[in-house]
């Protein structure tokens, strides 16, 4: 087995093994270090002796021995070797030896990483690191921050979890909605990062597939929550459109102009199934409504079908009842412009608190387009300039530049 193949094995085993180690020893840093060490040993041993039948079980057993050895050393070191740590197999190991499977504790790990007491900007990074096994380098690139900054952030988050007494148990049933919401918001942030890069050629390439994987895992681990299914559906609809999001010339193509024939039908069908579950379980949840918005677009078969603007506007009106924020209002304005005209949409935008939206690229981009359609060319040019000043990704930049040039 060569280097990249080993990497793949390590990565796919990472979440499960770190989760079981963390659940057993109640220490994230210890679990992470022991797993890294077991991967190093595998990289030394496997090429010569061959890959074991169940690589994950091998990695888990070695990682566990590393933890137990280090705990024994610590006891000896501080002279308090009173209680011998049992190396008898725990329930996890027995289960593993019988079934040759590492038990799935990943949900626990996700809840720990996404605990509301962990800084919100650290949650997604910690989840990607521990549950998905992404490297610090990869995550730093995806979040466009320095590696050292990210490493520091991860360290702080792990220390907070240990020192503040974040539980390693699954939360009590009555706090599930709140806790699950923190998990879903974390995944939304992670996916938004991946989605920003329309071409998928930037540093986020491959990152979106991790979020697809995580949301599917979560829907599998928490089968009776509508919001979880809705988010898994949303991510799939959005990802299904990736092949159509960028033109041959390299600029971004708006949703209404994308060729539906290029969309990935397999992902859309998977999303339809998940969304049907979500509608059954939580019909008025904002994530369900956002999933339905995506579905309305993804039901389009070709550019000859009428764009579903009336349905889109109706869904945004419903969404406003549960989630009234500037992002929903901006998106609703886009639909409103198609039905009542650009002027009506501009009036809607004028009600928003602009000071909070100064740094928000979609606000300027949408406003620029509406102003151009109203014939207010000078104002439109100014709005395009503001959007471009916010340093959009390449595909979006080219599109904005083209629109601005066409004024």
């Amino acid at each position, binding site marked *: 087995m060569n280097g990249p193949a080993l990497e793949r094995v390590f990565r796919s085993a990472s979440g499960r093994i770190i989760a079981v180690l963390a659940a057993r020893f109640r220490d994230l840093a210890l679990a992470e270090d022991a797993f890294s060490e077991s991967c190093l040993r595998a990289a030394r041993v496997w090429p010569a002796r061959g890959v074991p039948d169940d690589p994950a079980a091998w990695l888990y057993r070695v990682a566990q021995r590393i933890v137990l050895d280090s705990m024994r050393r610590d006891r000896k070191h501080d002279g308090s070797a009173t209680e011998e740590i049992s190396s008898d197999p725990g329930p996890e190991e027995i289960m593993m030896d019988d079934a040759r499977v590492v038990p799935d504790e990943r949900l626990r790990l996700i809840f720990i990483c996404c*605990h509301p*007491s962990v800084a919100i900007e650290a949650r997604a990074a910690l989840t990607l690191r521990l549950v998905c096994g992404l490297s610090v380098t990869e995550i730093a690139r995806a979040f466009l921050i320095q590696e050292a900054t990210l490493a520091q952030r991860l360290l702080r988050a792990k220390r907070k979890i240990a*020192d*503040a*007494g*974040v*539980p390693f*148990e699954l*939360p*009590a049933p009555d*706090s599930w909605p709140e806790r699950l919401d923190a998990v879903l918001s974390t995944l939304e942030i992670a996916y938004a990062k991946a989605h920003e890069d329309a071409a998928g050629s930037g540093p986020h390439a491959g990152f979106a597939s991790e979020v697809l994987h995580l949301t599917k895992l979560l829907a599998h681990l928490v089968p009776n929550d509508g919001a979880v299914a809705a988010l898994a559906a949303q991510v799939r609809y959005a990802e299904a459109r990736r092949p159509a999001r960028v033109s041959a010339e390299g600029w971004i193509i708006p949703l209404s102009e994308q060729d539906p024939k290029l969309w990935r039908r397999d992902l859309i069908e998977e999303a339809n199934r998940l969304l049907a579950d979500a509608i059954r379980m939580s019909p008025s949840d904002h994530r369900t409504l956002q999933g339905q918005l995506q579905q309305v677009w993804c039901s389009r078969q070709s550019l000859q079908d009428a764009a579903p603007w009336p349905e889109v506007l109706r869904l945004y009106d419903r969404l406003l009842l549960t989630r009234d924020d500037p992002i929903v209002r901006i998106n609703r304005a886009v639909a409103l412009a198609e039905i009542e005209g650009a002027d009506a949409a501009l009036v809607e935008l004028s009600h928003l608190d602009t000071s909070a939206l100064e740094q928000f690229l979609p606000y300027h981009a949408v406003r620029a387009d509406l102003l151009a359609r109203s014939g207010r060319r000078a104002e439109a040019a100014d709005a395009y300039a503001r959007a471009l000043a916010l340093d959009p990704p390449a595909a979006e930049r080219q599109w904005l530049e083209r629109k601005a040039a066409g004024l």
Partner: protein
Amino acid sequence: MKYGLFIYENEAFYGAEKAGPKIEELVGKHMQFAQRLGAKRIGGAGLKSTAVATTVRTAANRKTVHDGPFAEAREQLGGFYLIDVADLDEAIEIAKQIPVLQDGAIEIRPLLGQ
């Protein structure tokens, strides 16, 4: 694990003397709450207003005494509980049940040395 739960509220809600029917009602709620906590409560107190606070500052090894709280802020420490519970989630659950007069915040801090 042992935690301190620090109650921050806008002192304007308490009134100048931190007395009167509203405060009596609040104190009653705290007493009921402390009773419900039972052995999980290992300490705590309500504090008189920052109008009667005195601060001892140390700067360059020199101690000076000042009138008032250590920092002027809209929300001030009004009281605290010390609790001994299983984990942060239990501490959060308890913090959510602490009676507050109006708007406020409860800061949860693990105690050192555990």
